[in-house]
């Protein structure tokens, strides 16, 4: 395996780089889109259940199907990495929008009430009080979304854009386990690092959360 890595260093690194971008860009897009969506689901409670249902349906579409159908729907080119990014963004949103809504709903009503009574306006209250308090829940969802994205990118290799997935198809066509093992290990490693980073961010952003865990 080490031998394979040495011989194909450039190729593997390129696949890894592509993998990182294809997996993480959708996470960023997903965050930006799900925050307002999740908020709407809380602000207008009637929207919550339909939102959860739509998210569930989107999440059950097989990734390969989404990768292939998207060009027809959004008019991108067949091989465009945009398809992968959009598809994974859809999954991220499907996961996170609900998480954001649940996170915001989990915030103690008396706290939002207290904030209102102190003269917070809605938007400032959202960013100053509700979102920070929902952060532990939201970040837990973000971990799931990020890790799943990293593992899903490789399916794109079936249509020629798949980061480390290229190592899978390459190894598979040659009936050669080494590149597949390298690809799987790197993908898992990448997911592990991303997960760890989010945990570290969470610890830095929510020092109070660890304290309240001990509170009865």
């Amino acid at each position, binding site marked *: 395996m080490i031998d394979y890595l040495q011989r194909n260093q450039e190729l593997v690194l390129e696949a890894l780089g592509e993998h990182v971008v294809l997996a993480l860009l959708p996470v960023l897009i997903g965050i930006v889109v799900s925050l307002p969506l999740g908020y709407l689901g809380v602000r207008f409670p009637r929207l919550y259940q339909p939102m959860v249902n739509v998210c*569930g*349906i989107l999440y059950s579409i*097989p990734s390969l199907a989404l990768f292939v159908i998207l060009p027809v729907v959004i008019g991108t080119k067949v091989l465009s990495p945009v398809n992968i990014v959009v598809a994974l963004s859809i999954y991220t949103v499907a996961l996170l929008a609900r998480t954001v809504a649940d996170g915001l709903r989990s915030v103690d009503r008396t706290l939002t009430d207290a904030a209102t009574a102190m003269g917070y306006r809605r938007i400032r209250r959202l960013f100053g009080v509700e979102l920070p308090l929902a952060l532990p829940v939201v970040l837990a969802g973000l971990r799931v979304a990020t890790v799943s994205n*990293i*593992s899903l990118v*490789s399916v794109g290799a079936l249509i020629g854009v798949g980061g480390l*997935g290229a190592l899978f198809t390459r190894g598979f066509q040659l009936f050669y386990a080494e590149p597949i093992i390298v690809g*799987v290990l790197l993908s898992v490693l990448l*997911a592990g690092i991303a*997960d760890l980073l989010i945990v570290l961010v969470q610890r830095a952003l929510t020092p109070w959360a660890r304290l309240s865990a001990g509170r009865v």
Partner: protein
Amino acid sequence: MDSSYLFDPEHWDPGAAGSIPQLLLSHLGYSALALLFGTLIALPVGLFIGHTGRGSFLAINAGNAGRSLPTLGLLMLMVTLLGLGLTPVLIALTVLVIPPVLTSTYAGMRSLDASVVDAARGMGMRPSQVLLRVEFPMALPVLMGGFRSAALQVIATATVAAAVGLGGLGRLLIDGLALNDYSRVLAGAVVVAALAIVLDLLLGLIQRSIVSPGLTGRAVRTRRAAPAP
């Protein structure tokens, strides 16, 4: 978007090779086997860890670690190492099932009210009785949640079986892709998503029937709904 493939009655003839009903059946077959094996492995381990508290690190981290394994890579690796056939597909899908079931079993066991378990022991139940009559039924709602999400994941992922020459609804995706036939790919996506939704509803009904109403709040609701005497 062209849905002609999906609505062509020819593709729904259960007798025809490669028809949607046949693919559906094999898809369900792979998924059911993977769920069965995955649960057979993960459930006892989860119950053990939850009951004893030993190895909880494993259970907590199994979820994300499992999610991080790229199923396509695992599948291709298994085919490369073991050759063609059902076994590599089942291994890859089973690996997918284990983490959510393990994690949710553990979480279900850990979420139990310690005083209830204590009371059960105090009444003289043996450890096996505590586990089977108290802990397991009480952990069931959380556990079923994990099983349902595992089922959804497997249904969506079992499509990769087609990438290594097997059947299942992934056939529609892979063949549609090779033939540049979007109508077929769309049919695949729709049928898989519909299957996932129907299955989730079904599992929801099963959950209702096997989880004690005392745990779901339904009993409370019915009582409250009844008119006061």
